[in-house]
């Protein structure tokens, strides 16, 4: 996903004179080197507060800033700047993170950001994307460059084998029986494996905020139970699901990243297992074994 993002940005920087890329010493620092677009690749050094302030100023000057660094440093380090410099000023920006919840399992807690989507979902006017495939990343970044609103695109090393349309909608991948399994972003692969031989409907989306409420409502009406698999802090998607299912008695369960610190290193797949986000964990929750 990261490479596709860089390639897409390289193209956008050359073809759209309003696109700017704001970095804090992480990412493609020399993306447009040797071209006139190099002036629009702006590295502020290790200064995340200034990174957001600068993005705000660029937006106020009429540019379309894309801000990129590691997820916890992008979203959590300078959260008040996201709240005030971008949201309260009501300017548009695209934030693109890498690292997700536990891509950096071996780096420890400092490089993990399971709460990023929950934090941004508390602010008005943000569209939050969690793509599961490089094709989705390219589609989302190109679409975001054409607008002037506020968008967050969460890149991960967790990738699904096949892309889905990153158009903001919920898509049914496999129709089935009484349970609706809604997989968000990169959780599709594990959800597919967990439910391959079970009579469940598998659906997915790359955009949890705002969720495609009408499709979820429609699908929920055809099922007795909804299980949401999320790549971030467990139950982050709940407010959107509640809004979609308002007034309808529903059996809804969330499978996501737990709050407790694991205090273990290892690999992303180790952490997926520890959080019950691997195929076995999701299957256990589907079968109510755990």
């Amino acid at each position: 996903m990261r490479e596709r993002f860089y390639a897409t940005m390289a193209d956008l920087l050359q073809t759209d004179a309003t696109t700017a890329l704001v970095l804090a010493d992480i990412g493609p620092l020399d993306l447009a080197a040797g071209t006139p677009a190099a002036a629009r690749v702006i590295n502020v050094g290790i200064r995340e507060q200034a990174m957001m302030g600068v993005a705000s100023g660029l937006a106020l000057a009429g540019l379309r800033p894309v801000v990129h660094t590691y997820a916890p440093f992008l979203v959590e380090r300078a959260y008040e700047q996201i709240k005030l410099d971008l949201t309260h000023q009501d300017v548009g920006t695209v934030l693109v993170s890498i690292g997700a919840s536990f891509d950096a399992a071996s780096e420890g807690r400092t490089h993990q950001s399971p709460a990023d989507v929950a934090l941004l979902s508390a602010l008005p006017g943000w569209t939050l994307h969690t793509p599961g495939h490089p094709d989705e990343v390219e589609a989302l970044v190109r679409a975001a460059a054409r607008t002037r609103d506020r968008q967050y695109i969460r890149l991960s090393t967790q990738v699904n084998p096949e892309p889905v349309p990153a158009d903001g909608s919920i898509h049914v991948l496999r129709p089935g029986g009484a349970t609706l399994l809604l997989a968000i972003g990169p959780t599709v692969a594990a959800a597919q494996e967990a439910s391959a031989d079970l009579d469940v409907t598998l659906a997915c989306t790359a955009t949890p905020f705002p969720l495609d409420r009408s499709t979820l409502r429609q699908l929920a009406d055809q099922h007795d139970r909804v299980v949401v698999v999320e790549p971030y802090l467990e139950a982050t998607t709940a407010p959107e699901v509640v809004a979609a299912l308002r007034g309808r008695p529903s059996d809804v369960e969330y499978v996501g990243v737990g709050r407790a610190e694991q205090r273990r290193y290892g690999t992303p797949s180790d952490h997926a297992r520890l959080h019950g986000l691997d195929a076995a964990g999701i299957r256990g929750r589907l079968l109510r074994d755990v």
Partner: protein
Amino acid sequence: MPSSTGSPPLGQGLPEALLHNLARVTGDEKHEAAAHSTLDTLWVLYEHVLRLDPWESRDRFVLSKGHGPASYYAVLATRGLLPESWLDDLAGPDSRLGHHPDRTLLPPVEVSSGSLGHGLPIAVGLARGMELAGLPSRVHVLVGDAELDEGSNHEAIALAGRWALGRLSCIVIDNCSATLGWPGGIAARFALEGWDTTDVVSADHDALRRALSTSGSAPHLTVVHTAPKGS
């Protein structure tokens, strides 16, 4: 460096209409200089320094120290940038004017402020953005000496110096309100990062105008010494 000048009566060199508008905002005819530390600077800026025509390529002013904005509102109204009638309705549910300004409610306000330490980093981005957009605009940002406590300013001071943002002008209103002080002076901290600096006293409007009009290849700092807070 000039020292503070005590607490002179406010109003020397300021038009009657401005003082009248200030009274409309505050509901108080009596003005102490210590309570309106930004008034001289804002007046000189809007009367003599900012180029606002054509509006699309206007100079930008960012009030980072958003608390106590009565002087700001009074100056904007006196310069015809907001209806004077709005001055009579401060911080009510339908007011355009609050205790901190909101750019979405008040069009001439470039940046909404309140929480300290946000204006200077935004102004750095604005200056860089104007440069990229090929616009002639200068960017002025006003901060308080106590506001400089916030670390975010120091990220921005370093960036502006390294980027040699000659179109950026930072104004620090120094009313000696930083609790732990700035030993060696405020200007020294900017100068170390490559800024040009000038110290002036608030009441000297000619010096203020010269300092705020100064631009070169480096960003420019004007430290405005005013009556100490609470004096």
